[in-house]
């Protein structure tokens, strides 16, 4: 690529905004310390973690056209694997994290193998049902808190990093987000990614070209499930807490909102979406309270219709507003 074109790509408004966003997120621990506000760091870390989850959903939903309403289950499995091991005196992250990732990938394999035989609405429903299965199993685990959840101690990486250090943990999550975004970028333009996107565009044509579409979608689901599990691991460590709420169908819905809001099929879309989601949630409440005391409690009266409007009129999401072409 000529230097001119490279410069042209690096200094577009959308690239600058994205870069600014990433820099802000990276610098958040320092900003929080300067402002003396611990809460803002906590929210920022959670945004990063949910962004990872949303990127993983975008891989199959945005690029693959597979509308999964059960993605929060991977968050739950990742988190519960860590939590259960932690409650059973296995606190080493070196053991917990691979186990959690493996469990999430295994679940992804099972769900995908069964769900990918269905299409359309049936697919949405069967993924939802599988997530409910996990949810009820989780809330039935009395030994691990049941419905109320369980406080756990964070994963230990002896000598390497102390996850109780909020700044260190934030930077770890941020690094993992960057890795996830990097992978997603490669994924989107890889031979595999093109097959997946081709299948989203015209499944029967891809089959007629000779691609065993089922296999490709299955592998995509495995990858998405693994990254989803990663976000669950991080979420459990963020609050030192696991609960079935992590994997409720509402959370699956929130993830879809984040992906669509940010812009489906665009690499940085879920990052915008996660940020916008949290910003909306955090600002609607006080914003409404400003209009009239006590109204903040009913923020969903505004948020709900907002989602309807987005679904109807702003499908391209924030990415479209910023000028991202469909990749």
């Amino acid at each position, binding site marked *: 690529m000529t230097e001119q074109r490279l410069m042209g790509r690096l200094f577009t408004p959308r690239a600058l905004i994205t870069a600014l966003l990433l820099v802000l997120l990276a610098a958040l621990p320092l900003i929080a310390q300067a402002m003396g506000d611990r809460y803002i760091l906590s929210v920022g870390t959670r945004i990063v973690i949910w962004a990872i989850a949303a990127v993983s959903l975008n891989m199959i939903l945005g690029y693959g056209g597979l509308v999964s309403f059960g993605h929060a289950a991977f968050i739950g499995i990742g988190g519960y694997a860590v939590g259960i091991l932690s409650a059973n005196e296995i606190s080493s992250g070196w053991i917990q994290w691979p186990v959690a990732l493996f469990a999430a990938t295994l679940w992804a394999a099972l769900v995908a193998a069964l769900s990918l035989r269905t299409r359309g609405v049936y697919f949405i429903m069967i993924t939802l049902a599988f997530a409910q299965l996990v949810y009820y199993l989780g809330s039935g685990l009395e030994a691990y808190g049941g419905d109320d959840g369980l406080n756990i101690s964070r994963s230990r990486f002896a000598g390497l990093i102390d996850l109780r250090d909020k700044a260190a943990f934030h930077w770890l999550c941020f690094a993992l987000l960057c890795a996830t975004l990097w992978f997603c970028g490669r994924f989107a*333009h890889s*031979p*595999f990614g093109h097959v997946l996107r081709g299948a989203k565009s015209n499944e029967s044509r*891809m*089959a007629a*070209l000779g691609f065993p579409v089922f296999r490709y979608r299955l592998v995509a689901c495995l990858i998405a499930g693994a990254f989803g599990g990663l976000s669950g691991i991080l979420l459990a460590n963020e609050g030192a807490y696991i609960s079935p709420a992590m994997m409720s169908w509402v959370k699956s819905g929130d993830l879809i909102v984040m992906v669509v809001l940010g812009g489906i099929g665009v690499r940085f879309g879920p990052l915008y979406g996660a940020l916008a989601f949290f910003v909306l949630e955090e600002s609607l409440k006080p914003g409404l309270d400003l209009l009239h005391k006590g109204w903040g409690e009913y923020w969903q009266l505004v948020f709900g219709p907002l989602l309807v409007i987005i679904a109807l009129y702003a499908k391209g999401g924030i990415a479209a507003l910023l000028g991202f072409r*469909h990749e």
Partner: protein
Amino acid sequence: MSELLATDRLVKRFGGLLATDNVSIDVQHGEIHALIGPNGAGKTTLVSQLTGGLAPDAGTIRFLGRDITRLPTHARVRLGLARSFQITSVLRDFSALENVALAQQAHRGHSFRFLADVRRDTNRTEAARRGLAAVGLDARASTRASALSHGEQRQLEIAMALGGEPRLLLLDEPMAGMGPEESQRMVALLRGLKQRCGMLLIEHDMEAVFALADRITVLVYGRAIFTGTPDEIRRHPEVRQAYLGEES
């Protein structure tokens, strides 16, 4: 053995309707074999059974000497049996180049590679360009498939079907919806492909059929009533009665 494809007494029923009635046809290497018949004769049903979209109730299909009757679609494509669609079915969100590139990619081993960037794969891009040039579309390489004209999309269909260097091409009404000029171009294109692969051609456009076909099979009510050269078809009384009328 010069036989590419051969069906042996293929049968397909839909409830009480016999859509394919003991059809035995064959396609030879380097031949263009046309399948004609009135609407509802069962031509598309037959093609679907050949490609693997429908399972026949009885009979066998052999391709390159192999029994492919129970083989799934993508496996048949891998063996060299490609098709173009009656209703244009390209990847609308991708460029013409990318459409052909994917078609070719399907035949280059597996695509479980996650980190390679296809945009930097010059071999892939060049091969796709050649594929487009073979059908005369290289000028439109970077155009989105949905933005191509109807005739160009039909050309793209052929280019995609050729993506895997197929031995046999099943063409389902390639002239559909084309004006006279476009049809002429398509006929020239197909004639030029004869050396590369055999073709089984379903068409209503009789001018194109008689210009292209080495042999013609006439299908009526699911039954192949006659197979022969264009001249034999013109002279055959049953065919003239059932289908061609007085014009020939």
